[in-house]
């Protein structure tokens, strides 16, 4: 096993002590990624059913976190029926590990995306009526994040913004 192998464990409140000094960087997107996990955002989301994982190295250093959630939205009227959406509320990587390790096969961001997609497929597989798409929202100015998501077959949904001008991306899940 590579020394760069990441480990994923469900995030709990007890893990918050290990997040002292955790920072996704001083960019706008870095600051809200940090605040979501350090503040009450992650716990609030977990209370709504979201699964959050903390990723660590074999030595126990926290590299980042990721999450997958489900939410019941409604189709536009006149249909108006409920439909369940599968989405990634937030993921973040400590700035110390941005772009690390150099070997793309073991790049932490990619290991995290692989794990989140695997979890989304697993959650979807447990449903009677699986959904087609995995969604996420992204700051349109965060090009590095958009490129990472595009590498994992996410596409920007044209003409759709959410909340504070955020773009929405979709990934058509593998069977």
């Amino acid at each position, binding site marked *: 096993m590579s020394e760069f192998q990441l480990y994923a464990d469900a995030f709990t409140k007890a893990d918050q002590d290990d997040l002292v000094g955790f920072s996704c960087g001083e960019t706008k997107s870095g600051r809200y990624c940090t605040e979501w996990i350090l503040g009450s955002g992650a716990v609030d989301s977990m209370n709504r059913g979201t699964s959050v994982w903390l990723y660590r190295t074999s030595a126990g250093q926290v590299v980042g976190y990721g999450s997958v959630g489900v939410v019941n939205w409604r*189709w536009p009227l006149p249909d108006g029926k409920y439909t369940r959406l599968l989405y990634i509320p937030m993921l973040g990587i400590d700035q110390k590990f941005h772009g690390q390790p150099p070997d793309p096969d073991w790049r932490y961001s990619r290991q995290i995306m692989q794990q989140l997609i695997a979890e989304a497929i697993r959650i979807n597989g447990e449903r009677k009526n699986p959904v087609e798409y995995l969604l996420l929202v992204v700051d349109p100015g965060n090009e590095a994040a958009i490129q990472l998501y595009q590498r994992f077959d996410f596409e920007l949904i044209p003409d759709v913004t959410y909340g504070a001008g955020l773009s929405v991306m979709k990934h058509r899940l593998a069977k």
Partner: protein
Amino acid sequence: MSTTEIPDAPHENACTFLTRMIQTLPIEQQPAFYSALMECSDSLRTDSKRLMAIMDAPTSSPGDKGRAWHKMLDQLRLLPDTEGRYGMDLAQSESGAAERFPALQAEVEKMDSQEAQFADRLRQIMKDKHITQKQLAARVECTQPAISQMLNRKCRPQRSTLEKIATALQVDIRELWPDIDVVDYLDSIAAFEQDGQVMSEAMAKALRDDQQPRSTIKGKTLPSRKDRVRSDE
């Protein structure tokens, strides 16, 4: 300088927080930290052990751990101010440390979430203006327990609530939460997670679209570190 006792070296399992913080020091400062710890007086060493216990305690908050770490650096004289004086108060030492050790200063600033810093600011403003939780709750039309939760760092206020609090306290919203962009983003994420909202036509069209090729990526689960640690034990 005392030579009576050499303290136990901090080790990874017992003091992961301390170990991590030592790693945030510039590499040339790390030997200085260990030297100071070994060569300090008995009373300082006793005090350092007390601070290490705070850093190691599962019940200590991240803020307390950070303050304990900073206090330890200060008393070991690893945080001189710009004029070379020692023993200054925490605010002074943080300011001096920012010049000597920018990386450390950044770490100290990140000890608390913005949410926690908001709670501290709100508490201080309420104290300065002699406003009780009940009075503030009445002014922003929420309950006293809701204010209490904010002050106890148990919830993040939405921007609309922040605006009401700022108006009620007659302060600029950025005095309460300087990085307001973060609040807007987190509000957006929290709103996305609300059940029952009606999606836009454009969103519905995108979700009914079957033109996008199905991804071939099936993902890869990662092993559990907790399981690994358990099996190693």
